[in-house]
């Protein structure tokens, strides 16, 4: 079973993402911000990450940059899931190494569709 990490400081957003993905057959683990995500990813692989941008302590793009420095997560798909939708912010995400950009609020069926497409 594929494991997906959702990183968001909003508990209700994590609840929505986890509900959607668990019912689509994925195992879901959660982190509350970038630093928490780095902690939870120590010594473990995940199939995909869904990462919010605006979070306390460490934002999403900084997290992507940190993960891309590591051998383990250099190629793990990372989708940004955020209210941010400006072209400049998307470009920053792309340069940092994000795989794609999803704008909140997400549609559950579309989220599952894109996750299936990315994980394969």
């Amino acid at each position, binding site marked *: 079973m594929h494991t997906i990490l959702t990183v968001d400081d*909003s508990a*209700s*957003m994590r*609840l*929505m993402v986890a*509900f*959607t993905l668990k*019912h*689509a*057959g994925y195992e879901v683990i959660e982190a509350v911000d970038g630093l928490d995500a780095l902690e939870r990813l120590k010594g473990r692989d995940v199939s995909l990450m869904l990462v919010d941008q*605006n979070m306390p302590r460490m934002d999403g793009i900084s997290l992507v940059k940190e993960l891309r420095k590591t051998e383990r997560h250099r190629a793990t798909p990372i989708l940004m899931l955020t*209210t*941010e*939708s*400006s072209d400049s*912010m*998307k470009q920053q*995400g*792309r340069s940092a190494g*994000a*795989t*794609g*950009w*999803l*704008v*909140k*609020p*997400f*549609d*559950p*069926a*579309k*989220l*599952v569709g*894109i996750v299936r*497409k*990315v994980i394969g």
Partner: protein
Amino acid sequence: MTHPPDPSAAPALTPSVVAKVREQVAQANRELDLLRGLLHDAFEQLIAHFMQEQGRAVAAVDADTLLAETAHTMSAFQVQDISDQMAVHIAKRLKLIELVMQRGSAESESELFADPACPVAGKTLDFGSVELF
């Protein structure tokens, strides 16, 4: 040839104007608290509804049907969440204005440079917008 106005040449605010601005900021904070109370109430109602739907999930025929049935609740939940984030952000901005008014314009620039990033950037609800790089 015209030049843009020099901000440093602007007249300082009088104490009575500062007091009025601070009064308005305090009122805006009270109104924002009211809004956040309403948003919290919406959260309570939505979470109760969502938990009911989770309970029904056991009997759902397949994931696609279940997700289609819960899509409206999830959208409402997310809009509530985004609104709450925006309210928190506006409260931070009001706190910043209050700080600037307390300290006066001479010390305000460093505070303004610490402008809090707005968590909501979109002007419309672009449901499910997806872009793969």
